[in-house]
């Protein structure tokens, strides 16, 4: 099983623990991960203002993966959403496909829809499977309550992303349960983390983040678990930055999923980049058997 890794812009600089742990876990599971340093921005940030450029940016990455002859493993949910959306648009509309490919031809690239775009969690759930994952767990968690945060752009629009049931998803919860932790029910599980408004309308962004944290704490979560760099930054770095009046819900730290899984697999802290989280998450080890 081999994928080309679409790492995105944020992970290598600001959420390195996600890359480290995802690679470590993949290695353990026998997933071969190829790199492609020609991959560039997925296009997501420019979607608000320049739809045509958005399509070109995403399509170029798809064409590069097609040239590489590999399916994509995407770590970021915003990247995932963008790539999926553009693949969908090109599939639906031959005119768009033609126009984009004419542009890509300048770099000898072409996208014909041969690439499967998969989020990291989907690969674990569908391609590896819960049964195999279970066998790799050497020290399961005990009495650990995890609040899963699904992330918007993987889940919705469901007709495009086809990630899971958009109103009652189970994929992420199942993956958490494998580690021995309990995936708790919490009201704001499927809501936005607030990241898209950071830097645009910061009060709104932090209000939304704070609401999620408060909701998670109230539901009895020990940790939040995410699988997207934006969500992680929001719950980690931005939580740390929050102004005093929002601090009441501080205290719910976030861990990226491959770190959680890796710990239960017995991988070392170094390999999982545990020290790279801004809020200290080392206490989670006390829940290990």
């Amino acid at each position, binding site marked *: 099983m081999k994928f080309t890794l679409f790492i995105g812009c944020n992970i290598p600089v600001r959420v390195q623990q996600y890359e480290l742990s995802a690679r470590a876990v993949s290695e353990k599971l026998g997933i071969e991960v190829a790199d492609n340093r020609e991959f560039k*921005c997925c296009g997501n*940030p420019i979607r608000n203002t320049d739809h045509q450029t958005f399509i070109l940016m995403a399509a170029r990455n798809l064409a590069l993966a097609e040239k590489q002859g590999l399916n994509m493993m995407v770590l970021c949910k915003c990247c995932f959403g963008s790539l999926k959306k553009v693949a969908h648009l090109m599939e639906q509309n031959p005119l768009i496909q033609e126009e984009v490919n004419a542009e890509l031809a300048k770099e000898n690239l072409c996208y014909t829809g041969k690439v499967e775009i998969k989020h990291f969690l989907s690969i674990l759930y569908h391609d590896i499977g819960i049964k195999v994952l279970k066998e790799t767990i050497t020290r399961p968690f005990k009495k650990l309550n995890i609040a899963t945060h699904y992330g918007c752009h993987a*889940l*919705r629009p469901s007709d495009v992303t086809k990630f899971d049931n958009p109103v009652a998803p189970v994929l992420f919860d199942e993956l958490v349960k494998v580690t021995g932790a309990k995936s708790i029910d919490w009201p704001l599980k499927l809501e936005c983390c607030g990241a898209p408004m950071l830097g645009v*309308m910061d009060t709104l962004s932090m209000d939304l983040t704070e609401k999620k944290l408060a909701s998670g704490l109230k539901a009895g979560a020990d940790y939040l678990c995410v699988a997207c760099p934006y969500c992680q930054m929001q719950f980690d770095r931005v939580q740390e930055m929050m102004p005093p009046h929002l601090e009441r819900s501080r205290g719910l730290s976030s861990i990226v999923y491959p770190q959680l899984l890796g710990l239960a697999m017995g991988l070392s802290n170094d390999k999982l980049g545990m020290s790279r989280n801004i809020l200290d998450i080392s206490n989670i080890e006390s829940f290990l058997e």
Partner: protein
Amino acid sequence: MFYDITLYVALTIFGVGLMYKISGWFRFSIDMQNRVISTPAASGIGTAVKGILATLFSPKFLILIRVFVKDVLVQMRIFNEDILRWLMHMLIFTGFMFLLITHALGKIIVTPLFDRYYLALNPFLLVAGTMVLSGIAIAGYRRLVLKVARLKTSAMDYYVLIIIAIIILSGMAMELTKLTSYEYHQKIWYIHVFACLFGLAYLPFSKMLHMFTTPLSLLANAVMDKQSDPGNIQIRQMMELDACTRCGTCSNRCSVAVAFDRIGNEYILPSERMAFLKDYYADKTISTKGLEAIQQGIYLCTNCDRCTVACPAGINLRELWFNVREEMIQRGHFVDLMLTPFSYFRGLNINEFDSEQYDKPLASVRKKITEPYKLLHRSDDIIPLTSANQKFKDTAGLTDRSGTYAYCFTCENCSTVCPVVGNYEDPQKNLDLLPHQIMRSMGFGIRDLAMGSRMLWYCLTCYQCQEHCPQSVKVTDILYELKNLSVTYNSGKQQ
């Protein structure tokens, strides 16, 4: 006599030019007035010298040696980027250095060491000359035949290649005619000496200055960090502008360079931005159009740091962009990109800014983008529903099935599930129209209502509305589309 005079003239111009260039690093600086900790104004040569001395007499000295060998002499950064390019640069660098030390400065350096150095036909000179020429041939090949992506060639790049070629070719011709024709040998001597001295005198003003500034940038960045004296960081950033050779590595690695292919604003490419900044910081004047272009170029950045990691001159582009971007934004004007996720990085660093200065540009962009839609702010008006703007309705079509707004029967599901609407006690006061009202405005073809609401720009794009619409209206996609339309409308491209 002729030789002596021209040599001293050239040396004087070189010396004065170099001092002038270096003084620029201290005279010019990035405007940091908007920061929480603004820089002390009086940072000058004193702090710079202090910083350098402190580094030389500390364990950091070892880092300097390592970087000097690895990045300055062996040039591993170029090697990692592109082997052909490394070969090109190494051929020119080693060949030229050899000629400089053994030949140009021969009388000072070599003769005292080896007294029988003079040879009738010096094979070393010819070998070194051939090396430099091969390097130049590769450079020409890369620029003219390979046409390396996003490598822009300016007059300066041609000048450097041509002047070096003239120096080497005339030198080799001199060497070869030495035994055969004394007359030619003498004539070529004039060309050779003139080219060398011209190159020397013009060096501080040309790209060749990088032979001093690039190593300096590599070394300075190896030992400086965020905790370094802010004054010294400012000096370093001005010096870095001179260390850039516009080699295009950053533009090639740049995450958003693809946007340049479509938009055509060359300031999207980091290397072109560097070229602009060199001129800009000399006098800080800029036209409105130029400012808009540079603002767009510098804001269209995901802060992925790839340019900084790849830069062969070791320039800390990350910090440079961060500081320059803020200076440009604070100069006013309209950067619609501020209302997109490109602002995320600025938001992450909110605590570094003076809060009033931080909010000012955002507030002005928000105002400007909703301002043209007057109808929204005249709530007493009676809106004639009959004159639906069909032309406006027809413009919707960027995404798949955006015409679905027509199916909206105002059940308000979208507005009910919207986390942004849910965040405000009085949503209409903060957002103007809510998602379902925007869909209906589309149905009526009332542009001002559909495009003027702040709701558009506060949308998280979380797709809750679209997912929960019983009529399969592509609510989020339509909101995306309205934002796009609003930007084109504002920039006057479309009526």
